[in-house]
């Protein structure tokens, strides 16, 4: 398909700029002007609508396809949230408005949404305070680790490293490194949870903290979590909860109750805000009282008279992590989602997410090697090791599924499992969808026995076949105008 630039016809324009009502004015001197205009497309509105609608048709999405994508929680994004974000009172609100004198009174509604969302998340996670500022999950991680560093600095602790399990998301070690810490990894034991002996060996006085997903990326809840927290706290380390898998435990367990000091939440996972093909997300961070002084500014406060405000006067704060108050449009969607579900709905979310994951696990375990045969939480990890012996790898099964109109599960992650296939169905899928997926996976296994070569041509039904990624990296054609 042609690029929008290749559809350009000289003189065409997709949007009418209003006539000036102030007449011609004195311009800027020539030396400050650009020589040639940017080569934006010249196309009519219809040209553009058709172009992007055609592009849309080349995508899988939650609205069109099942995404059993482990650790990504690709649940359905209810449509009413789209309506909520377009309410003019929010969409057109300038973020500097509350920074004018008495400006807070002009944005009481928006600050109330932030305040209320904080209250919901505190109660749900057992944390004492929340900040809505981080702009995505990894940004939340960085905010959390920066608070960790501020805590140690304030206490005069000499801390050099952060511990992560080998099954962690790549963002955990990347974040810790960017915040200036060394990384110490702990291997998993035969049950798929962190090896306690190996962990004990790695905890020293220089341990700044531990970053953990719970349940972990093997889909297993670590029953030893309190013991781990005690070990880390014994050296004045901080327990960091990576909220990527929070969807498994709503109403069943709260990170704040089991020893975690700081948590980030991916609202585009647990709270159903759309993934957008890779963002925008939001990554609110919650802390217990211990880390409260270090929260980013501004902070949302509710005054005695019931008015809401933004407070900047916290001398120990790590400062600004975002220009304003977070990805407000995304937080608003998450708030609307929580209001709709309420207490019971949130509990049912985790119940069904875990039920669906276990159902798939039980039905597929005869056909695929299960990494850990244990009741799982919201996701389970298989290995395509049996199929790989027949020449059919995880990637081949993934491409086969695409031909069957199913988005592939997460593959080759976690790194602890060879040929990993990580399946997270979420609570929003019906039993019929799960059964169809299971049958398709069984079909793939059968085909790997009878005709393994047939996989290598998959996918066939998509706009393109398998791309040449080596060529892409070698030629680095990333800009039409330089190609």
């Amino acid at each position, binding site marked *: *398909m042609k690029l*929008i630039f290749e559809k*350009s016809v000289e003189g065409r324009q*997709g*949007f009418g700029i209003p006539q000036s009502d*102030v007449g011609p*004015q004195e311009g*800027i001197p020539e*030396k*400050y002007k*650009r*020589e040639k*205009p*940017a080569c*934006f497309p010249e196309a009519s509105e219809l040209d*553009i609508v058709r*172009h992007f609608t055609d*592009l*849309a048709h080349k995508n899988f*999405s*939650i609205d069109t396809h099942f995404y059993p994508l482990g650790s990504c929680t*690709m649940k359905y994004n209810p449509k009413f949230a789209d*309506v*909520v974000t377009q309410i003019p009172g929010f*969409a057109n*609100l*300038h*973020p500097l408005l509350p920074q004018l*004198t008495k400006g807070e009174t*002009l*944005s009481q509604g928006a600050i109330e949404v932030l305040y209320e969302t904080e209250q*919901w998340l505190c109660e*749900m996670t057992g944390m004492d305070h929340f900040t809505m500022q981080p702009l995505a999950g*990894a940004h939340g991680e960085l905010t959390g680790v920066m608070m960790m560093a501020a805590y140690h600095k304030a206490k005069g602790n000499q801390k050099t490293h952060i511990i992560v399990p080998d099954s962690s*998301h790549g963002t955990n070690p*990347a974040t*810790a490194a960017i915040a200036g810490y060394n*990384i110490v990894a702990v291997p998993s034991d035969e049950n798929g949870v962190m090896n306690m002996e190996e962990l004990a060996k790695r905890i020293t006085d220089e341990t700044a903290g531990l970053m953990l997903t719970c349940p972990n990326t093997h889909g297993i809840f670590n029953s030893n979590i309190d013991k781990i927290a005690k070990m880390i706290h014994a050296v004045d380390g901080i327990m960091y909860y990576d909220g990527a898998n929070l969807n498994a435990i709503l109403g069943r*367990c709260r990170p704040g109750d089991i020893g975690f000091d700081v948590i980030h939440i991916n609202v585009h996972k647990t709270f159903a805000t759309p993934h*957008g*093909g*890779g963002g925008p997300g939001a990554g609110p961070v919650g802390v217990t009282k211990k880390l409260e002084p270090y929260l980013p500014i501004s902070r949302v406060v509710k005054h005695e008279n019931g008015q809401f405000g933004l407070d900047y006067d916290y001398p120990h704060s*790590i400062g*600004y992590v975002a220009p*304003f*108050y977070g990805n407000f*449009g995304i937080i608003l969607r998450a708030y609307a989602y929580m*209001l709709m579900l309420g207490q019971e709905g949130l509990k049912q979310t985790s119940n069904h997410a875990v039920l669906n994951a276990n159902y798939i696990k039980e*039905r597929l375990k005869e056909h695929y090697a299960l990494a850990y045969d244990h009741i799982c*939480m919201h996701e389970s990890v298989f290995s395509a090791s049996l199929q790989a012996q027949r020449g059919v790898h995880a990637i081949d099964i993934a491409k086969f599924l*695409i031909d069957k109109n199913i988005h592939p599960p997460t593959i080759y992650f976690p790194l602890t499992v060879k040929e990993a296939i990580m399946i997270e169905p979420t609570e929003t899928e019906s039993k019929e969808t799960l059964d169809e997926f299971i049958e398709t996976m069984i079909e793939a296994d059968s085909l790997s026995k009878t005709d393994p070569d047939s996989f290598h041509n998959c996918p066939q039904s*998509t*706009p*393109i076949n398998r*791309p*040449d*990624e080596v060529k*892409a990296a070698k030629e680095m*054609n990333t800009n039409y105008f*330089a190609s």
Partner: protein
Amino acid sequence: MLKVIGVNTIDDLFADIQPHQKPKSFDLPNGLSEFEVIEKIKRIAEKNTTNLISFLGGGYYDHYVPAAVTALISRGEFSTAYTPYQPECSQGTLQALYEYQSAICTLTEMDVANASLYDGGTALYEAIMMAIRITRRKKIVMDGGVSPIYRKIIHSYTNNLNIEFKETPVVHGQSDRDQINNLLDKDTAAIILQNPNFFGTIDDHSDIIQKAHEQGILVIESVYPVSLGIVKTPGEMGVDIVTGEGQSLGLPLNFGGPYLGFMSTRKKYIRKMPGRIVGKTIDSSGKSCFVNTLQAREQHIRREKATSNICTNVSLCAVQSLIYMSLLGKQGFVNLSQLNLDKAEFMRKTLETIEGVEVKRSSPTFNEFTVRLAKEASVVINAMIEKGFAAGFPLGRYYKGMENYMIVAVTEKRTKEEILKYAECLKEILSQ
């Protein structure tokens, strides 16, 4: 389903959570129907004041968003898609991001762009880290005209990293050449500039850049994309890394986000650039197609050795800005830029006639400019709110000693009538 799993109740599935690990509390309100939620949130929205005529800018502008932008971006195939790790079923997002990167490159006149970062402030921080990686030096010279909001973000992130920051003042609205030059040495990684700067003034940084390059120092410039319809581009000046806030390219103000951080650079620095990059290639049948490329820079492959910890960025906002740039088109974008400039110039001329208003004229400006008032700016702005205007942003909020100054932004949405009415109200307030 429970029978297949081999348990009796849902509770059995949660047996790994020990009794003492159960929630101490989970006291949340009952759920509401769709209708009730929308009504409740509408009532909350009504507590915001939305009828003010806005001249607020500060890097975030009240531009019109064409209907086609919202309509296209609301399509579920874009909004509910996952990150395009599976290229065969993500060509829509991937091609759009390739087009977006190309649009950012032609806008800034640079070689390569990434597929987005969170916002203009965090993009500038990423650019600083990138410059430190490239030069292996740790001193940064920061121009005082860089947004104070960005500077606060950068300070938070780099606080523990032993980076030396030197700040130079703004003179007559522009970068102070002498002070910058005095600070440059072989330990300097980069100079950080902004154009137009926070005071609204335009500069041609070519001379600073030339001097910097002589000493192996990189220049990073943060830009306001709408100004680039007319204003000299970072590419023309010789900038090494360009960043900016893309909110003005078709994104609503949304009380601070989601926004769009963009970044472009020279081809030789592509491997040091953070964030996702989409590349063009061919598939097994020779058909051209698009993939995420150079992923060995990223956290999901490189873990602690990655160029950044960024994972989810703002893909949908990037596509949104692409649709906006496409709709405006080559000439439309220039015209929009010109209209912003003209309206701001008209407003400057209008305000200059008022006693108690001094419009700073030492350097050219784009659609935002600095005025000095005979009274404290925050007091005047407060009085203007009563008259129905968000009159501008008081510089005293971020700059000590500038309590009588404010910046005033004028976009294509403001009319001559509104500007004249603003002037009338301001005159009245200043004469009291």
